[in-house]
């Protein structure tokens, strides 16, 4: 940094000399004040709404039944839950999209994740980092099932949860392609299906279709570019760069970028099928879910891709 400092010092000294040299004569000074370089920001915030077996996680009120859910409720009404939070930065170990400690075959759930990139267009990606995939303990029936499958059962042995948990992911964009509901200058939004955590087959294509964790793709750009191609490319009202004043196809760009100041909704449904066998008993699968954004401008190859 030495060279920079030196240059600045030189600059200041020269300026002083110039000023000193004008005082004695007629003259005129034209000043342009307030010339500014301000760096833009790329900031990501995330919110989540968690659903489990027809119950919705309502923060402090705990699990509450959704319309049409019949008793008996599991999880119990009012029991605590931690999968729902409003738009925020994520804190290590505090916000978890999924935190289920007593799954049974037939369990299912859904998490609506919204991503909001402030001010500037950005590339996004989604990384799943497994941190534990274990049998945990081995119950009697689990031992029998794993013996039959000729797999090892016991503490520290490979768990079967990840092979039996199926994920479906979709862009929860509602009946109007793109995202209309993130307009900072308007609280109303005329797409009631946007971010409603229900998969509407007619409007919302899946990007994961009942796949196990190992098969998931993670590039948000592919998802968004795919949606642009499917819903927007042939629409003359759409804009290829995804900026459309929160109108049709706003947020969907041909190159798959995330458009600044847009709230994106992703639905992630999971299902442990009723046919799942005893080999999954007490098994545990833990993963970190990371959302990364990088600036779009001047950055044709994000995330170190060549």
């Amino acid at each position, binding site marked *: 940094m030495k060279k920079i400092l030196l240059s600045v010092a030189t600059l200041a000294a020269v300026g002083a000399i110039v000023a000193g040299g004008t005082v004695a004569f007629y003259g005129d000074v034209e000043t342009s004040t307030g010339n500014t370089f301000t760096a833009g920001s790329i900031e990501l915030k995330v919110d989540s709404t968690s659903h489990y077996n027809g119950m919705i996680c309502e923060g402090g009120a705990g699990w509450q039944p959704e319309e049409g859910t019949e008793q008996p409720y599991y999880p119990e009404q009012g029991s605590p839950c931690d999968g729902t939070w409003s738009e925020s*930065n994520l804190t290590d170990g505090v916000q978890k999209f*999924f935190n289920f400690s007593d799954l049974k075959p037939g369990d299912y759930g859904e998490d609506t994740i919204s991503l909001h990139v402030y001010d500037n267009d950005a590339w996004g990606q989604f990384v799943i980092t497994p941190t534990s995939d274990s049998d945990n303990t081995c119950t009697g029936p689990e031992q029998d099932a794993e013996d039959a499958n000729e797999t090892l059962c016991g503490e520290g042995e490979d768990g079967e949860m990840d092979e039996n948990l199926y994920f479906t992911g979709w862009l929860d964009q509602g009946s109007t392609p793109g995202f209309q509901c993130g307009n900072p200058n308007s609280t109303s939004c005329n797409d009631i299906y946007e971010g409603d955590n229900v998969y509407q087959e007619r409007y919302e294509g899946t990007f994961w279709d009942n796949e196990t964790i190992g098969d998931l793709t993670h590039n948000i750009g592919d998802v968004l570019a795919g949606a642009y191609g499917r819903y927007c490319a042939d629409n003359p009202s759409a804009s290829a760069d995804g900026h459309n004043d929160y109108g049709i196809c706003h947020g969907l760009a041909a190159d798959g970028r995330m458009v600044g100041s847009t709230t994106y909704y992703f639905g992630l449904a999971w299902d442990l099928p009723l046919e799942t066998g005893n080999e999954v008993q007490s098994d545990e699968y833990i993963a970190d879910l990371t959302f*990364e954004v990088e600036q779009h401008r001047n950055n044709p190859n994000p995330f170190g891709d060549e």
Partner: protein
Amino acid sequence: MKKILLSIATLGIVGAVVIGGTTAIFSDTEVSTGNTFTAGAIDLQIDNESYYNGEFNQETSWIQKDLVEGDWFFHFEDLKPGDWGEDTISLHVNNNDSYLCADVTLTSNQDNGSTEPELNDEDPYTAGEGELADNVHFIWWADDGDNVLESDEELLPAGTLGALGIGQTATVPLADANGNIWPEDEDGPLPGDSTRYIGKAWCFGALDVNASTYAQDSDSGPDVRPIVCDGSQEDNSTQTDSMTADISFRAVQSRHNEQFVCKPETQPTTATLTVDKVITITDPNQPPVSINDFDLFIDDGGGPVQVFDEIAVTGLNPDDYTVTETYTGGDGRTFDATFGINCVDQGTFGTVTLAAGDNLTCRIINVETTD
């Protein structure tokens, strides 16, 4: 000003280099750590406390565990009339609500050869068919854990194992969608982390249930309050006989399984149809015809299938069927046919609709047409 411009240019280059060396581009990362999916467990464990003629019997008692080969609820090799026993079985379901069922399967019931007194009493002697299973009586009840049948404890359906054929299974629902035998539970599944008790007593002879029932809240086991068993009416026909049975307990998850019953009623999925052929009047001037001179067919739209008179056809898919016949006599004679009973007469054929579980009959009555 040349020098200033030069300095700014230098600044620009150096600046660019510095940015390149620290962070390539603006970015942000949000991590949600420790997302967890953990499966629950349904693991049933059982312990058993067994008494034989009022004395604690170590061989058929064990502490809580998963059962393996050789864990027997009863294993008695020298029974005499009047012998009796009592077991209290504890069922432990780990931390999840579950349904419970008991299944008892008779696996053998043998004579094991015959002694002289056995031959005298067993008349006629049925070699290979033991009598013991008919003469050991059982009672089962929802116990409160003290090895004593008390007046407020519910008796479960039971009797002798001889009521079962070899290989047959009797299923006793303990807790399912239809009810729950334990008074401390609501109807339906057992709450997780709970222990429930089944009392079981047997008597080689006549078991007096009333005399074996004690007051509510009695404690102490059968060493103090015995099962009243009378073997005086037994004869020698059971000598050296043996019987074996498998007793198993099933725990099944209750979540997503609200309709679970231990003994599902099997719904028929197929139907049965019988074609009954009758020839009433034939031309007296012609040789007699028989039912065998007609081929009979049923058809559900997939093509005619030949059937035979009065032989029930089982396993048919529920559907609309047409019933037809052809005369195979080959001598030009013709017959009027009337379709009846469950068949609707359509002139030259009959129709019948079979629903699952139906057992219907289509009768064809023939009258020979004469000029």
